């Protein structure tokens, strides 16, 4: 077992996403300060008046515990990207069992780097602690320690990490006990007698002498998450930062539940008018956070807001089972994946602009090609040997002049090379777009050496395609 504790030590202020410098306060005391405020000496526990004296431009905001709880749960979903064993340690810590997934990420250092990058892109500060027991991992976050020598690191921690009440802390100090090492050196019975029975138990759990089971975080059955925006947002691409938190949580939730999606819906709530639904479509089943974010960015960049946005919702539509992918045995790579690019093209050019082709069984040339959203995996066996057909087909047949009984193209007579091929079909949809056809087709060449496919019907000669 290897427990990684992630302590979001600025969660109360970062959940509010206020412009810096900002602090979250409760009962006129600082609970958490953002990086700018902390650099000016604003510390948790200070009185607001003192903090304002240090930094007059400070923006105080009342702490919102229910939003912190919601964000912590959303972060637990995001942590599903890394491991299925996640536990909440409210109010601001997550516990991840990473011993089983180090191989997948290529070791501890790449995994920790991924976690740090992911948190930074969501605008969250974190401290990590790594130890074989969950409690030691939580305590080690105070030193942001992920060292292998966790016992040595644990011993040097100050006694404040225990989170005892003030009176108990004063008694520890009075006895000259400053670090955990000094506390570990004392007999358990003595410590229990002086500081309550709980403390020696805690110390034993941290050192792995007693079991310390953690309730696992249950990934919700359905993914519906909301995010209240700190201020009304009037430009769509400013929403991306907020949407990113939701999308990264969605990716983790999908990973933990072994699901993938082809669509999800980003709902933008407005104050007065009905909400805007922004569907995000993907070319193939996915749970890749990068792909989700890229498509959201394309959509948001092109979207014009009808009204300022106050809140974001994200729904996963109809998730389907998506098995994990195996790591290649010899590290070989297939030649890249086209699906993310197709999504980007569709987001900018429209869904219909990128398509595959399929053959439709119809003798009428206009109806023989069907655009399909994605090519069918296997080609239909091509058994019938047909007369020549051109690679290019004109969307609208082009009228040709007839001079002395011969069709002309660009002023010059065409040279007909074949006998007439009669196509007569479509009586069943007389009034439809294509309708009933009666045509004689010929292969013809121009003086410039172009090979054309032309036909004659009751109305004259028509150019229908080119043999490219």
């Amino acid at each position: 077992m290897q427990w990684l504790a992630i302590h979001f030590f600025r969660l109360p202020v970062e959940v509010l996403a206020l412009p810096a410098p900002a602090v979250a306060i409760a009962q006129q005391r600082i609970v958490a300060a953002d990086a700018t405020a902390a650099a000016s000496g604003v510390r948790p526990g200070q009185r607001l008046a003192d903090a304002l004296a240090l930094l007059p431009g400070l923006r105080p905001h009342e702490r919102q515990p229910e939003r912190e709880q919601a964000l912590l749960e959303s972060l637990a979903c995001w942590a599903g990207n890394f491991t299925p064993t996640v536990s909440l340690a409210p109010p601001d810590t997550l516990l991840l069992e990473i011993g089983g997934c180090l191989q997948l990420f290529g070791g501890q250092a790449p995994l920790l780097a991924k976690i740090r990058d992911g948190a930074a892109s969501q605008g969250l500060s974190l401290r990590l602690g790594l130890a074989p027991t969950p409690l030691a991992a939580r305590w080690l976050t105070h030193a942001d320690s992920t060292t292998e020598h966790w016992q040595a690191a644990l011993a040097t921690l100050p006694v404040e990490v225990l989170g005892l009440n003030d009176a108990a802390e004063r008694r520890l100090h009075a006895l000259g006990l400053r670090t955990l090492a000094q506390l570990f050196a004392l007999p358990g019975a003595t410590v229990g007698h002086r500081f309550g029975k709980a403390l020696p138990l805690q110390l034993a759990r941290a050192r792995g002498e007693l079991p310390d089971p953690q309730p696992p975080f249950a990934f919700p059955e359905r993914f519906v998450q909301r995010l209240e925006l700190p201020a009304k947002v009037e430009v769509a691409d400013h929403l991306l930062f907020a949407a990113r938190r939701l999308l990264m949580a969605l990716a983790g939730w999908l990973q933990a539940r072994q699901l993938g999606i082809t669509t999800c819906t980003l709902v933008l709530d407005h104050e007065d008018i009905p909400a805007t639904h922004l569907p995000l479509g993907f070319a193939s089943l996915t749970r890749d956070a990068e792909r989700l974010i890229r498509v959201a960015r394309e959509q948001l960049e092109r979207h014009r807001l009808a009204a300022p946005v106050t809140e974001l919702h994200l729904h996963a539509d109809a998730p389907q089972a998506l098995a994990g992918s195996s790591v290649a045995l010899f590290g070989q790579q297939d030649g890249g994946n086209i699906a993310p690019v197709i999504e980007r093209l569709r987001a900018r050019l429209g869904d219909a602009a990128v398509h595959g082709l399929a053959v439709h069984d119809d003798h009428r040339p206009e109806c023989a090609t069907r655009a399909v959203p994605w090519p069918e995996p296997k080609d239909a066996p091509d058994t019938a040997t047909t007369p020549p057909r051109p690679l290019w087909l004109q969307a609208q047949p082009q009228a040709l002049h007839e001079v002395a009984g011969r069709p002309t193209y660009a002023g010059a007579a065409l040279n007909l090379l074949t006998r007439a091929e009669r196509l007569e079909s479509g009586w069943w949809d007389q009034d439809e777009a294509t309708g009933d056809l009666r045509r004689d087709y010929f292969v013809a060449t121009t003086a410039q050496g172009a090979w054309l496919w032309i036909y004659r019907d009751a109305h004259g000669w028509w150019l229908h395609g080119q043999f490219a």
Partner: protein
Amino acid sequence: MSASPAALDALLQRADLWRGGACAHHAEATLGSGFAALDAVLPDGGWPCGGLTEVLADSLGIGELSLFLPALRQLEAEAGWVVVVAPPAQLHAPAWQALGLPLSRLLVVEAEGADAAWACEQLLGSGALAALLAWLPSADARALRRLQLASSNTRCLSLVFRPERVATQPSPAPLRLALRGSDSGLQVDILKRRGPPLAKPLCLNIERPLPWSRLTRRAVAAAPVRREPHVA
């Protein structure tokens, strides 16, 4: 002081440097064109995979795609996708399939102007393409340079089709061809290659719906049907 012969040899290994009479040799992959006469004059003995090939042709139907059919048929399923960007007309799926271009690996991207060039760049960047066929009549030198850069990092047969009037404009593509139709075959004029210019265009008997001999034996089946199509 002159450089040592060893240094000169090392210099001649560069893709963008060649002796006056010979062609530069690229280390990159090539696809045999299927025409011995053409392979003999292409710098690497085939169509380059990686790097743009600019094809200048004015009219549709002279065989601008048939010239590349033998190469496109060689592409293995694992090599990647064949993507057609901004086609000048609709693709007639039965014909593409009948000519041996599998529809299961074919994608069509409809785009115009700058969007088409942008789409090509995105597609080349994915590294998942075996061949790109793009019609970019209005692309400027800057867009082409971006495509050339994106393409040179891939192993993708990158064909850019443009009208013949741009032949006088400079282009970053290392290989430029002008195509003209004729009675005896497709005239391929290599306007630019990494090597000496060619004296005269090649005439290739590319694949056509009918044998080339039918063109010379005129009037065999040329007489149009005089009567009106039967209307019930």
